[in-house]
């Protein structure tokens, strides 16, 4: 039951006069016919038509004092039912102004069900569609490599042609405005890592080694990875949604017809901003994480100075640079995938949501894959 129905001024009613063997059945409709009142009458009338499938049926609408589009639709429904030639349905006594409304429609035109809205695809068709979409996406991804590569090359050749104001704006949104969440997660990461490992190491009286563990894992691995994943969720999704909405609003088309390539105009500033800000954010996350770890150490009665000395004597510059090298790749992935998914957006509001989702998922997958490759390479280089 819907709670917000209109009050019924005079409810629609149906009276059925059963015929003698050869006289037509009469359905007398009375009252208000509108979308709120007719549900019951509609069902009764349909049932009556089924019951008198083989005799003519007259729908007496003389008692109808109001009939809007829904009522007309019901009458059309009664008229469109397939009947034999000697058992037609007729409507009588409908007030002329409603008859005029009814006459707008040809009941026969409504006989066939409309094409099913979501027809189910056969497995073959689905496979084909998926393959074709994947190929399309792959093709545009490859083309995107070329466009962005050309855009970045042009930017390197003539830096004054880069839209720096856009770049700084993106850098601010991506970097400065991302600091609170990076601080929160970075700090928590440091605290949790330190605390968990300290509990285990205390059994050996080796709490001080927490500094080594924290330093090496944050610098080499976790700082960069955590920052990149946060950026993928925060910034990659934003890029995809913003560019996707521009695509839906034909703003991308407007750029193209103005002779401005989207790759140079939209993508290059975003990639540059990400390349600049990701290392800085990672550095910041590492520092915050180490501070968090230091505070935990304090609670285990290890002074900050001792913690710092142990840290600096253990981690090397190579650890640090190895971690920072990843950040450029991760930043590139986040911006790249965000922009690519944005430009691949199809039409409609839902497509923007899909693009944002896909940007985050793809970026995280690629970040993890890239991190694995880094680990492999570093292992073989013995870094």
């Amino acid at each position, binding site marked *: 039951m819907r709670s917000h129905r209109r009050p019924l001024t005079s409810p629609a009613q149906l009276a059925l006069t059963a015929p003698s063997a050869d006289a037509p059945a009469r359905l007398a409709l009375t009252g208000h016919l509108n979308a709120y009142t007719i549900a019951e009458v*509609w069902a009764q009338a349909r049932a009556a038509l089924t019951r008198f499938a083989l005799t003519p049926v007259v729908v007496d609408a003389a008692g109808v004092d109001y009939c809007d589009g*829904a009522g007309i639709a019901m009458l059309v429904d009664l008229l469109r039912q397939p009947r034999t030639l000697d058992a037609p349905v007729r409507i009588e006594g409908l007030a002329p102004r409603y008859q005029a409304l009814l006459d707008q429609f040809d009941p026969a035109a409504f006989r066939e069900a*409309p*094409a099913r*809205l979501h027809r189910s695809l056969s497995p073959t068709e689905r496979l084909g569609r998926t393959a074709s979409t994947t190929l399309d996406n792959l093709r545009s991804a490859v083309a995107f490599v070329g466009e962005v590569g050309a855009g970045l090359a042009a930017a390197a050749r003539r830096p004054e042609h880069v839209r720096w104001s856009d770049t700084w704006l993106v850098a601010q949104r991506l970097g400065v405005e991302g600091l609170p969440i990076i601080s929160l997660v970075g700090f928590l990461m440091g605290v949790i890592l330190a605390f968990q490992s300290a509990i285990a190491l205390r059994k050996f009286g080796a709490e001080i080694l927490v500094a080594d563990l924290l330093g090496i894992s944050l610098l080499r691995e976790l700082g960069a990875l955590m920052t990149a994943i946060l950026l993928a969720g925060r910034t990659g999704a934003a890029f995809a949604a913003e560019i996707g909405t521009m695509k839906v609003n034909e703003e991308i088309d407007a750029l193209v017809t103005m002779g401005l390539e989207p790759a140079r105009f939209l993508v290059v500033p975003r990639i540059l901003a990400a390349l600049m800000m990701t290392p800085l954010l990672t550095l910041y996350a590492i520092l915050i994480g180490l501070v968090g770890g230091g505070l935990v150490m304090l609670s285990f009665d290890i002074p900050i100075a001792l913690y710092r000395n142990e840290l600096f004597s253990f981690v090397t510059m190579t650890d640090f640079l190895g971690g920072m090298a990843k950040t450029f790749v991760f930043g590139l992935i986040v911006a790249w995938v965000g922009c690519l998914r944005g430009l691949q957006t199809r039409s*409609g509001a839902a497509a923007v949501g899909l693009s944002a989702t896909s940007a985050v998922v793809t970026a995280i997958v690629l970040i993890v894959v890239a991190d694995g490759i880094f680990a492999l390479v570093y292992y073989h280089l013995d870094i």
Partner: protein
Amino acid sequence: MSAQLPIIRVRDLTVGYGRRAVLEKVSFDVYPGEVFVILGGSGCGKSTLLKHMIGLLRPMAGQVLIEEQDITTAQGEARRTLLARLGVMYQSGALFGSMTVLENVRLPLEEYTDLPLEAMDLIARTKLALVQLAGSGSMLPAELSGGMQKRAAIARAMALDPPILFLDEPSAGLDPITSAGLDQLILRLARSLGVTFVVVTHELPSIFTIADRVIMLDKSARGIVAEGNPHVLRDTSEDARVRQFFNREAVLEAV
């Protein structure tokens, strides 16, 4: 017509953005079954006025009474009931992109009535047939042309047969034939069902065909500068702004 009680009464309505008033102390009535047109140059507040009349925006002062209930202050259930009494077609159509055209039209029926799916489908299809979109029900809005989207949006606004329909620039962007067809549709619905139309439009041919009464808004006056039958206004108004509006049309027609 004026013997009847007005279905919409706007009283001393002041609307604007921030502190800047776009319209000040505007009052007018709309009577049941009439086609009421709001016109005026760009930026005079036509769409803003419309958005206040359908309760989307809160006025700075004044009332909008729809069937004697103030839509500007209605809350909760009363507001929902009131909103079910009106249908709105937005300038760009505002069809839901993730639903087919038929699903768009069916949505209000699903939410407000207890009809079975088959019945709702049929009602939705008759609405689409009214706007000559009978064959497009299973398409997505993005697959329709701009004019078709507008017509589908009108069909959706009519889904529940509300007694009041608000149309924001219905014929802008439509070809003359479709536009004239739409005018006929508006007149037919107004005359046969007694639907009240509040239409914002620039299209003068359309205004002269459909409008029973118009109000003309003006940017600098921040209010109504003329009210009445468009033919009468065109021929007898002494206001330069009104004459300008209709005379430019006369010049255009002569060309």
